[in-house]
C-alpha cells in the first residue's frame, strides 16, 4: 500500500518534472509530503497521468525496491530511483548533443556511398537488438584514429582508421553491434546518472535539430569529453558479449568482432591512433580472454555470413 502510493508520487513527480523546468528538488519534497499526507487521510491517490512516452510501469518498478519499513524518506535515493531512466526524449536530446559535439571535433567522411552503406548495415544489426523507438544514426568519422563511439539515443560512430582495418561486412557488423549494445544497455546514461544525481533538463529551448542544447551540454560537461572518459571495463566486456550475439542474430558470423579484436591485439603499443582507444577500453587481449570465457563452445553451431564481396572499401 505504502509502496504503491510512493510509486504514484514518483510517477507524478516524474510527470510534472518533465513537463516544466521549475526547481526540482523543492518540487520533489513537496510532492512526497503531499502524497504521504494523502495516504494518512486514507484518501485514494489519484491516478497518475503519465506523459505518453514515460511508461508508468517503468517508473513504478524502479520505485518498488525502497524498504516499506523505512519511515524517513531519503530524497537522494528517491531521486536516483526516479531518474533510473531518462525518458526517450531526454535520451535523444542527450545523444544529439554528444553527437553534435563529437562532430565538432571530427567531421564525417565525405563519401555518400560509404555512409549510406554503414547506415544500412547498422540498422539491420540494430533491428536485432529488440530496442524499439530509437532513431539509429551511423557515421564514419574522418580521422585516422582507431576507435568507435556510441552516444545515447542511437548515435554510433566508427573512425576511418578503424574502418580501413576491416576485412568484411561481418567485422563491420561486429563493431557496430558492440556500440549498439552500449546504447541498448544505456551505459553512458548510467555514467551521467552517477555524476549528477538529479538532473532536470527542462524543456528544450529550441526544437531545431541543428541547434545546441545548453541544458544538456551542462549535464555532459565540456564538449564531447564524455567520449574520452570511457566506461567501466565490465560495460565494455558486456558490450562485447552482446555485440557478438547481435551480429550473429543478424545472420553474420559471430567471429567478426573477435577478428577485429585480434587485429587490434597485434597493433604496436606506441601508436597515436590507438591511445584514446586504450585509455577508454580494456586491452584487446583481455577482451578476447573475457569473451572466450563467456563463449566457450556456445557458438559452435552458429553459421553466418562474412560478406567480403559486398564490403564497401574506402578508396
Amino acid at each position, binding site marked *: 500500500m505504502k509502496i504503491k502510493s510512493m510509486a504514484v508520487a514518483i510517477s507524478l513527480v516524474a510527470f510534472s518534472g518533465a513537463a516544466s523546468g521549475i526547481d526540482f528538488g523543492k518540487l520533489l519534497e513537496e510532492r512526497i509530503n503531499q502524497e504521504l499526507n494523502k495516504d494518512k487521510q486514507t484518501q485514494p491517490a489519484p491516478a497518475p497521468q503519465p506523459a505518453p512516452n514515460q511508461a508508468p510501469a517503468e517508473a513504478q518498478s524502479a520505485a518498488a525496491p525502497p524498504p516499506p519499513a523505512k519511515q524517513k524518506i531519503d530524497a537522494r535515493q528517491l531521486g536516483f530511483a526516479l531518474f533510473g531512466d531518462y525518458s526517450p526524449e531526454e535520451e535523444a536530446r542527450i545523444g544529439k548533443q554528444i553527437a553534435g*559535439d563529437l562532430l565538432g571535433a571530427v567531421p564525417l567522411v565525405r563519401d555518400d556511398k560509404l555512409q549510406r552503406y554503414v547506415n*544500412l548495415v547498422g540498422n539491420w544489426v540494430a533491428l536485432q537488438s529488440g530496442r524499439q523507438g530509437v532513431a539509429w544514426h551511423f557515421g564514419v568519422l574522418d580521422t585516422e584514429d582507431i*576507435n568507435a563511439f556510441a552516444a545515447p539515443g542511437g548515435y554510433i560512430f566508427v573512425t576511418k582508421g578503424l574502418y580501413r582495418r576491416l576485412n568484411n561486412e561481418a567485422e563491420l557488423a561486429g563493431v557496430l553491434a558492440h556500440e549498439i549494445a552500449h546504447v541498448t544497455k544505456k551505459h553512458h546514461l548510467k555514467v551521467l546518472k552517477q555524476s549528477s544525481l538529479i538532473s532536470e533538463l527542462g524543456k528544450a529551448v529550441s526544437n531545431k535539430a541543428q541547434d545546441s542544447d545548453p541544458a544538456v551540454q551542462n549535464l555532459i560537461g565540456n564538449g564531447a569529453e564524455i567520449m574520452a572518459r570511457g566506461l*567501466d571495463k565490465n560495460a565494455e566486456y558486456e558490450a562485447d558479449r552482446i555485440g557478438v550475439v547481435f551480429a550473429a542474430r543478424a545472420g553474420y558470423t559471430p567471429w567478426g568482432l573477435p*577478428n577485429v579484436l585480434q587485429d587490434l591485439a597485434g597493433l604496436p603499443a606506441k601508436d597515436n591512433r590507438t591511445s584514446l582507444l586504450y585509455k577508454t577500453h580494456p586491452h584487446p*587481449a583481455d577482451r*578476447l580472454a573475457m569473451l572466450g570465457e563467456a563463449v566457450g563452445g556456445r557458438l559452435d553451431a552458429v553459421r553466418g555470413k562474412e560478406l567480403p564481396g559486398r564490403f564497401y572499401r574506402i578508396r
Partner: protein
Amino acid sequence: MKKPFLIPAAALLLSLVAGAAQAAQGTVLRNDKLYAQPSAASKVAGSAAKGARVTILSKQGGWLKVTAGRTTGWIRLLSVRAGAGGLGGAGIGDVVGAATTKSDPSRVVAVAGLRGLNEEDLKKAKFNGEELGRMDAWSATPAQARSFAGQSGLVAANVPGLPEPKPAQSSSPWESNQ
C-alpha cells in the same frame, strides 16, 4: 621476453615482413585443447597451456590453426591472442603487426606518424549542427535495412544471449542495474 624495437622504421619493416609471411605469433589466453580439425567434435591433437606462445598458421571461422611446441592443431579463436604482447593487459603491446589478416600494405603505412584523437580535442569540441544534419540525411529506415539484408541473403537467426562469466573483482554497477 623480446626487447621491443624502439625505432619506428624497424617496426614498420618488421610489420611488412610479418604481414608478408603466413605465420604470426600469438599467446594462449586459457588452457585449451588443440583439435585435428576446426571442430570440437574432431580428434584431440594435444593441448596448450595459458601463457604458451604459439605460431598462428591460418584461421577458419571461430578457429585458428596453430603450432604449439611440437603439436599443430586447431584451437578456438578466443583462446589465443594474436601479436607478441603475451597475456596482455596493462597496455603491453607488440612490435609485430597482426598477420592473422591478409597482407595489406595500406595497413602498415606510417604507423608512428599519424595523430590520433585526444581528450583535449574532444573537450574543446563545439557543437556542429551542420554535420549532424548531414548524418541525419544518411540515416536508413528499418524497411531499407531489411531489404538491404535480404539482397545478400542475410536472415535473422535465433541466437541465445551469452552468460556473464564469473564476476570481476570489483562489483559492477552495470550488472545490478539492468
